[in-house]
């Protein structure tokens, strides 16, 4: 890290990006899909009369609210958070892709301008003008995805950029097309689910017109996403493919036991969630159909009572098994993450079911059902993004820069000439703490480990090194200096230690001191 380090205890600064980007990425893809759905609705509005026009204007306003407040707000948030968490990598990416981001900004400006036009001046526009604007909005939103996709995929598969340093060589990379297809598919799924949620309660004359395209969006999006995920996987390097498959296998664990437990927990969770939410909404004065709710809850309760009666002890054992699976005693933290990501991908079955059900029996769709499906799809999308991030490790830009902001081509110089001698902020930190051995060790820890670990919170190094004596900790960091994968088995998971042998000893001493050794 060339800049000062944001040392956020407990959670770790990386999670700040994670939380903001999960929200932003979901909204950003959602608005692409909603834009296309709104354009389709606008094109069909002439048959729907003034009621439909009024309704579409209302949806455009809602989209502006979502996009303007939360989409743009979290978009700025991503800029700020990546600059805080990994300023060195952010600066490198901006140097390489500033013009791509500038183009994306121009498209974003077009997106917001057309949306403001539609939301505020809808009735000053003729129907064909509205349709042109709605399609222009959808096109601008999708094109901004087309641009940003090049930068995201570059970080995973930079192609020939590391040698040429030409923007377009990095932009058109191996995973560009599958990723674009996948993200377009996801955008259709999210947009379609939003369409289902906002159309669930409208008068039946409009409802059928709105629900059908929205359901088709979801189903088409899922097909495109599934196909392109397979395509995406095949464009990854064979080493990344093997690492991913191994990690997924480990995460699956005893899958049969997991499925039984998951089914039961989800079933109970749905009943509990439905009940609590309905009561809460009822208390807020929203109509939820108490009688219908009571019937459904009663039936589901009976079903569960019957299941528990029939399976008795096995059901209890399955629940215990599921608890143990979730707790994952003895498995690495990364595997936990994969499990959550996998469950998220599995959760895409719910939106698929809801969309198919709506296509076949439109009157059974409720807003609550569509909203839950939308949230589950966001979870699934988050799972995919998490797996993509992990596939990039130990790099932030594969083969160019490690997750801790140290470029691959800097490692040798740091190992020969010393990190502290060449890094002004590590020196500044050590000096602020009296330049003791522990202060120097902590400075090295902050600059090289904090990007992914914390002292005693998320991915805690205190916990990981609890059994280490001081000499073990030193030997461990010295092992991380090795650049030969035969000697350093962590090289495909962690950046090598970029410092001299003596500095590795200082970092080791600091690690041991976390456990009072």
């Amino acid at each position: 890290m060339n800049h000062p380090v944001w040392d956020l205890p407990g959670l770790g600064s990386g999670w700040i990006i994670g939380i903001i980007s999960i929200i932003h990425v979901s909204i950003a893809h959602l608005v692409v899909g909603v834009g296309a759905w709104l354009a389709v609705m606008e094109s069909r509005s002439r048959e729907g009369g003034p009621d439909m026009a009024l309704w579409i204007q209302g949806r455009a306003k809602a989209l502006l609210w979502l996009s303007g407040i939360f989409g743009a707000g979290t978009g700025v948030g991503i800029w700020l958070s990546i600059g805080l968490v990994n300023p060195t990598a952010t600066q490198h990416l901006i140097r390489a892709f500033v013009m791509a981001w500038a183009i994306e900004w121009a498209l974003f400006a077009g997106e917001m301008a057309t949306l403001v036009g539609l939301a505020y001046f809808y009735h000053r526009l003729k129907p064909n003008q509205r349709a042109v604007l709605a399609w222009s909005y959808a096109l601008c939103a999708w094109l901004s995805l087309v641009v940003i996709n090049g930068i995201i995929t570059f970080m995973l598969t930079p192609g020939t950029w590391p040698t040429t340093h030409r923007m377009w060589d990095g932009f058109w990379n191996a995973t560009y097309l599958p990723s674009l297809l996948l993200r377009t598919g996801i955008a259709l799924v999210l947009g379609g689910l939003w369409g289902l949620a906002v159309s669930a309660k409208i008068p039946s004359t409009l409802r059928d017109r709105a629900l059908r395209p929205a359901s088709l969006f979801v189903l088409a999006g899922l097909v495109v996403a599934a196909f392109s995920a397979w395509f995406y996987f095949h464009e990854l390097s064979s080493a990344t493919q093997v690492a991913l498959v191994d990690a997924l296998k480990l995460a699956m664990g005893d899958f049969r036991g997991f499925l039984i437990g998951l089914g039961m927990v989800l079933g109970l969770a749905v009943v509990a969630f439905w009940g609590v939410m309905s009561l809460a909404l009822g208390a807020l004065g929203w109509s939820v159909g108490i009688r219908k709710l009571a019937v459904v809850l009663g039936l589901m309760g009976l079903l569960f009572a019957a299941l528990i009666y029939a399976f008795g002890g096995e059901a209890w054992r399955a629940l215990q098994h599921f608890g143990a699976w979730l707790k994952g005693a003895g498995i690495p933290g990364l595997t936990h993450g994969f499990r959550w990501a996998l469950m998220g991908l599995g959760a895409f079955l719910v939106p698929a079911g809801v969309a198919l059900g709506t296509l076949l029996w439109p009157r059974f769709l409720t807003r609550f059902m569509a909203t839950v499906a939308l949230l589950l799809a966001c979870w699934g999308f988050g799972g995919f993004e998490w797996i993509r991030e992990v596939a990039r490790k130990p790099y932030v830009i594969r083969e160019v820069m490690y997750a801790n902001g140290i470029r691959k081509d800097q490692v040798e110089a740091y190992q020969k000439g010393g990190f502290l001698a060449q890094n002004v902020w590590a020196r500044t930190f050590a000096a602020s703490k009296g330049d003791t051995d522990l202060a120097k060790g902590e400075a090295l820890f902050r600059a090289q480990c904090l990007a992914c670990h914390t002292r005693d919170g998320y991915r805690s190094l205190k916990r990981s090194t609890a059994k280490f004596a001081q000499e073990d900790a030193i030997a461990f960091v010295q092992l991380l200096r090795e650049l030969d994968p035969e000697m350093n088995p962590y090289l495909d998971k962690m950046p090598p230690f970029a410092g001299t042998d003596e500095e590795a000893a200082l970092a080791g001493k600091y690690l041991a001191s976390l456990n009072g050794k």
Partner: protein
Amino acid sequence: MPLPLPVPDPLPLPLPPGLFKALLVVTGMLHLLAVNLAVGGALVLSVHALRGRSSDREWVARLVPLLPPAITFAITLGVAPLLFLQLLYGDFFYTASVLMAAPWLAFIALLMLGYALVYRFVKGASIRGRSGLMGMLLLLGVGFLWVSVTTLSLRPDLWAAQAAAAPHGGWIRVVDASLWPRFLHMVTGFAAVAGLLLALWGGWRGHGEARRAGLHWFAWATLSQLLWGGWLLMAQPRPLMKRLMHIETMEGFTLWISVAAGLAAAHFALKARKGEASLKGLWLPFALGLLSVLGMIWNRDQLRDMALEALGFRSCALPHATDGLSFVIFLITVAAVALLIGVMVRWIRSHANEVAP
């Protein structure tokens, strides 16, 4: 100990740095004009809404719905200068923001919450003055964080002390003398520009009360800048202040022309207050006020370059390797989007009489 300046990134810029500098200044001006309209508008309108005079009620209700799209444009137009600022001044900007990471991150929460509250400012026939006021205060909080980071970014001599005082980036411990006058200068500027635009709207719509109130805000906010601006000038490091004081330097010339234009605009605004409810008498204060605002924004950029030059950094000396293709695609995209917006505005204007805003 030498200043803790990070080692510059080795990648060259894809275009000459002067071009990026021009893009930064132009997009920065557009962004700041939108911010002036949005935040200054929220300030002026919430004050009038809370004052509750029946003569204000009608024009406040008509203008409040314009605030959310104004914030939308302020955010949208803010992304580009943020990008170019990071490109040209990244080492200074990132370092300062990491050193006050936690409050800096609150920027997002303040922005979204402020926006949502301004959105709630008016609903149907009811005006929620308190919601507007709270939203405006939160948005001013965003402005304060921005001023804090940019001020700290120009003072590498304070960085080590700030890092030692707040190792987790908890709060702003080390404050530069120019922080408060810069903030007050900015807030008063928001009120002045919003007042000027309110006066123009009042003149355009034949609304005497709005016209008078707008001119009042503009004139007094501008005159109060003598206090904040003077304080800001005095708070500058000695060599910078000296250059600003001399009109024969480029920076001094920009400053004093802007001051003169601002004072002249305030004078003509006070004179125009008693005029009829039309645009007559407003164009001169508007043109002079705009000149003053744009001059001040440019002067701010000059001030940054002066401070960094003293540290041996010149953004215009950054290395570059021209990538013409991406610039051409950028220009085509901007032209296409401008055409789209132009066509949209034309369509909307052609039916302007059907629904009045």
